[in-house]
């Protein structure tokens, strides 16, 4: 079947922070650039980022990119690539100041400089004491950032395709990426976007988990497309969790609630933290609390019909204290858990927040895959940045405020690399292989014509419950093994979903079925990669890899100081070395990660 072909120099998928930053680079260099996005750009999930963006500007006190680099390597539990981390930390100031020039309304010091505040894990002088490194615009940093960059793109004539969903990568026989197929949701029409450079900036896939802080749009579309096109996904076992999200909703309950005297209880009403942390109890660190909660649930002491959450009790506190010290918590509990915390405890579970892994790239934002003798051969014409990419700067765990920095630095870097390639490339586009276009048409047609198939929402729920139970914040060998089988079953259902609404025009049921096909690839990648990694490192914590003298925190550098690469085909795993050599400074040597 023939489809309309639209030709651009560059096509970018995703209009959050990374996509908008990359687009500025291309459009301002005079290249014809399309941005495809499911939602209006300023409604991308970047809006939810409040903490700020890290840069060692040193406006409030002495700071240095090398200290920032040290913190990031340590935070990553040494799984981050030190060349990419040096690159990001050195580029931070330039990127933040550019953003200021785009009109970003940063908070200011009395002297008119960008005001900086402290944030967890950011220290001065190689881990000595906290430093003020985060640049923010009140509590709307992500939102302000998107607005500034969207305006800049409008001025530079970037062409936006809003309410379009990208379907599949187009790769030719040599493996070069020539664009994407995408569907106009308004009409249902499928179009091939033919481009010399294709940049993925599609964000994370936090929706694979039952409890997730991610908005509904975060369905890992770029990861699904890459996986289907034979590109491996890197380090997908690493997900950052928060201990207390409202069960079934994912909305966060701040840690301040436990600080004010909130108590965690199991189905027997027991204050179980007394057993796990006799001194700190409910105020133990995030990891300890999350692990204890998971153990209670796994051992059958969870609450509710599925025994899959515990309770956060503040009903013993004076209502006046709750209203005064914990503003907003009562509203959230009433709105999302249906309980008034003054009278009843709040159901909570450890909640997925950020995806450290993704499409493998180098620090130029180019997608790299194993080929021949190289573990990182550039895929011509293909770039990725932001949460969907793995540069890898976050390694096994991300520091707060480094996510906004990641999307600025690598969005720009991917854009710059694409500009350089476009300047060198011949005038004509390479021909589009019809078979690649047909892949997307076949998938959509399958959904439209499926009979006796699986229900989209039920399958999505099965996926999310399986991920939460089998590959949650605290992991167990037997559960992971079982999880691999279970998630494979879910995948079969996700690929045979049936929808009732067959109309072409604005069919959200079809979009959700397509999103599920992307999500499930991420879910399988996560489960298989996590099952295989037989150590604890950063956010990947296994019961059978405990903290010992020989292996502090359960980390096994001898066998596991390497990146995972998962391939969709046969769930094959490959590994590649961590880049321990930075660009200009000495390696930050391995040591135990302790704060």
């Amino acid at each position, binding site marked *: 079947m023939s489809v309309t072909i639209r030709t651009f120099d560059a096509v970018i998928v995703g209009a959050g922070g990374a996509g908008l930053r990359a687009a500025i680079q291309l459009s301002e260099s005079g290249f014809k650039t399309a941005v495809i996005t499911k939602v209006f750009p300023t409604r991308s999930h970047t809006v939810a980022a409040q903490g700020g963006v890290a840069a060692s500007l040193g406006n409030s006190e002495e700071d240095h990119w090398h200290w920032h680099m040290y913190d990031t390597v340590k935070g990553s539990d040494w799984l981050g690539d030190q060349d990419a981390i040096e690159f990001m930390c050195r580029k931070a100031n330039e990127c933040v100041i550019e953003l200021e020039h785009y009109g970003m309304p940063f908070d200011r010091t009395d002297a008119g400089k960008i005001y900086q505040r402290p944030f967890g894990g950011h220290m001065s002088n190689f881990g000595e004491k906290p430093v003020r490194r985060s640049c923010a615009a009140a509590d709307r940093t992500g939102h302000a950032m998107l607005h500034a960059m969207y305006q800049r793109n409008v001025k530079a004539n970037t062409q936006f395709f809003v309410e379009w969903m990208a379907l599949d990568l187009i790769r030719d026989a040599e493996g070069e990426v020539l664009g994407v197929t995408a569907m106009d949701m308004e009409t249902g029409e499928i179009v091939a976007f033919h481009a010399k450079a294709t940049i993925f900036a599609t964000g994370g896939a936090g929706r694979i988990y039952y409890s997730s802080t991610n908005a509904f749009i975060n369905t890992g579309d770029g990861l699904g497309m890459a996986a289907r096109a034979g590109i491996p996904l890197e380090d997908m076992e690493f997900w950052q969790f928060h201990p207390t999200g409202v069960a079934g909703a994912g909305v966060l309950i701040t840690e301040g609630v436990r600080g004010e005297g909130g108590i965690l209880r199991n189905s027997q009403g027991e204050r179980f933290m007394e057993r796990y942390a006799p001194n700190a109890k409910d105020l133990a660190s995030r990891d300890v609390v999350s692990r204890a909660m998971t153990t209670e649930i796994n051992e059958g002491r969870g609450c509710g019909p599925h025994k899959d959450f515990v309770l956060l009790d503040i009903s013993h506190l004076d209502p006046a204290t709750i209203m005064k010290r914990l503003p907003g918590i009562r509203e959230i509990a009433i709105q999302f858990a249906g309980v008034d915390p003054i009278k009843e405890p709040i159901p909570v579970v450890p909640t997925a927040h950020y995806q450290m892994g993704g499409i493998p790239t180098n620090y130029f934002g180019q997608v790299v895959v194993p080929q021949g003798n190289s573990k990182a051969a550039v895929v011509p014409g293909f770039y990725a940045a932001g949460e969907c990419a793995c540069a890898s700067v976050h390694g096994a765990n991300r520091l707060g405020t480094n996510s906004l920095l990641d999307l600025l630095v690598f969005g720009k870097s991917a854009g710059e690399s694409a500009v350089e390639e476009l300047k060198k490339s011949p005038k004509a586009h390479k021909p589009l292989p019809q078979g690649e276009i047909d892949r997307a048409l076949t998938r959509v047609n399958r959904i439209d014509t499926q009979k006796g198939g699986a229900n989209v929402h039920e399958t999505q729920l099965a996926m999310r419950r399986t991920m939460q139970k089998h590959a949650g914040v605290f992991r167990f060998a037997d559960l992971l093994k079982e999880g691999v089988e279970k998630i494979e079953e879910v995948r079969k259902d996700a690929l045979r979903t049936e929808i009732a609404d067959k109309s072409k025009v604005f069919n*959200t049921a079809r979009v959700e079925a397509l999103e599920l096909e992307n999500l499930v690839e991420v879910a399988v990648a996560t489960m298989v990669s996590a099952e295989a990694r037989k150590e604890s490192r950063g956010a990947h914590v296994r019961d059978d890899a405990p903290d010992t003298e020989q292996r502090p925190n359960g980390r096994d550098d001898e066998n596991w100081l390497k990146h995972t690469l998962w391939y969709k085909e046969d769930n094959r795993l490959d590994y590649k070395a961590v880049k321990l050599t930075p660009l200009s400074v000495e390696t930050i040597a391995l040591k135990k990660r302790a704060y």
Partner: protein
Amino acid sequence: MDEQRRVRRERLRWHCRRALLELDIVFQRFWARDEELNEIDEAALEKLLAIEDHDLWSLVSGREEIDDPQLKSVVERLRRS
């Protein structure tokens, strides 16, 4: 429901996909209740959906109020979600 109305409804439903999880859940519950929405309600919802996410959440969570009676009525229904 005629096709034009169905498309308008579907478009509204899609515009309820937001940047913030809090709003996603409120709208999901709102639609799941399958409430009667007349054309005036739909127009009001359209206007509300044009509001930036943080401001919309302030309205829905009750931290802010809105004067317009049409919008107010839809906001109150969202608060019940």
